[in-house]
């Protein structure tokens, strides 16, 4: 009997939570903001910009505030073009009747937020573009990219004769990730590649790499990478920043794999999931920054 009552209690408190959330977001939030606006003399965006330091804590709150605004100017601001950010910030200030003399830092803070918020969306679009281009052996520039990569770190195997089938799902995004890693962090990439040919703990370098591209891509798509980019890039994040994140994944996953000592390559998905959970947990932290630090020992 006891368990039943606790269950009912849990259910009703969950329901109360939902009701509260609904009431708050659709009705109370407005009055709450109205009240604070009159007490502090600042609009919500100003309070966010002055109350939180630059990075995910500030930008995520600003994003939520813009998206749930009643004003179309503010709602549209999350998808502003890169070269329109300044005008957009001024339009928001006009709409919200913010006087810049009274809050001189606000405009710049707001611009950084807008660059980051709209930049994340643009980054997803360009990553998606690259993913949709498929690798083509007949295409000389694609073939050359692969050769260049072999020269940097050494040759690694694909499943069959045609690497194209391995890049399925991730297309040129997978290849550019691999190349970026071996060109920018050559020593680290060589180290990872040398682990991958280990007789017992070895794995397919290219295929694991492509699977990690998929992980980074899916996290980007779901929005889970926002805190990372808001913390580490104070402008619009670019493709290069996505490649940097991939390098972090490639290096850290290899380290994780070696430390965990899996029984064989057949365990890959279990450890992949474990690593995925680990990354998701890190991304929950407000000051997350998934950056590769170059080890001085290398």
């Amino acid at each position, binding site marked *: 009997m006891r368990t039943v009552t606790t269950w009912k209690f849990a259910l009703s408190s969950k329901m109360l939570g939902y009701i509260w959330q609904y009431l708050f977001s659709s009705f109370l939030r407005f009055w709450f903001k109205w009240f604070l606006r009159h007490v502090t003399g600042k609009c919500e965006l100003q309070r966010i910009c002055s109350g939180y330091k630059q990075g995910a804590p500030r930008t995520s709150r600003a994003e939520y505030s813009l998206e749930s605004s009643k004003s179309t100017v503010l709602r549209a601001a999350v998808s502003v073009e890169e070269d329109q950010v300044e005008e957009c910030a001024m339009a928001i200030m006009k709409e919200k009747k913010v006087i810049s003399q009274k809050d001189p830092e606000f405009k710049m803070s707001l611009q950084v937020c807008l660059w980051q918020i709209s930049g994340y969306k643009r980054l997803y679009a360009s990553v998606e573009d690259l993913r949709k281009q498929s690798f083509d052996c007949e295409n000389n520039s694609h073939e050359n990219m692969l050769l260049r990569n072999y020269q940097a770190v050494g040759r690694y195997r694909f*499943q*069959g004769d045609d690497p194209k*089938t391995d890049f*399925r799902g*991730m297309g040129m995004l997978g290849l550019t990730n691999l190349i970026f890693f071996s060109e920018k962090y050559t020593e680290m990439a060589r180290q990872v590649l040398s682990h991958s040919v280990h007789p017992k703990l070895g794995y*397919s370098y290219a*295929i694991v790499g492509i*699977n990690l591209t998929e992980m980074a891509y899916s996290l980007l798509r779901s929005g889970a990478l926002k805190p990372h980019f808001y913390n580490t890039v104070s402008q619009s994040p670019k493709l290069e920043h996505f490649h940097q994140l991939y390098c972090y994944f490639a290096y850290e996953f290899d380290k994780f794999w070696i430390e965990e000592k899996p029984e064989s*390559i057949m365990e890959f998905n*279990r450890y992949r999931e474990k690593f995925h959970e680990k990354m998701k947990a890190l991304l929950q932290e407000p000051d997350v920054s998934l950056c590769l630090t170059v080890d001085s020992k290398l």
Partner: protein
Amino acid sequence: MGLLSILRKLKSSPDQEVRILLLGLDNGGKTTLLKQLASEDISHITPTQGFNIKSVQSQGFKLNVWDIGGQRKIRPYWRNYFENTDMLIYVIDSADRKRFDETGQELAELLDEEKLSGVPVLIFANKQDLLTAAPASEIAEGLNLHIIRDRLWQIQSCSALTGEGIQEGMNWVCKSVNAKKK
């Protein structure tokens, strides 16, 4: 039968579990098929390192589907998954004519395995959405399927991408498991 007894029957008979092994060469479409069965997103599937497993409810069965990577390097591990298999699904890329011999060889070896003896086999002639795909009849002939006498078998043309033909194949799977269990 009254409503009450139907409800009771639904409640009292837990789903029968069926272990299905999904094998075939790399890039055949095994993972896409698996995700298609589980109604998941198939837009960005990558090569399988190791294996994937998913449980799908179908026609009163709980199908535990094991999708094992097909790259040459991990084919030696296939045998670790043979035990207690109720159904083998072998996936062929019908457009990859260059590797028809290789895929036939692998299939022949599987059918020779002692641990898989008598296990019904469904062959999916996948990628029928491609213009260059060979029809199922041609593949059946190439693989000499008609000489199989020691088990139930079926070849089904399908496209894991569009979902076409998959339901027909799975109907055969459920029917054959039923026939075998009785």
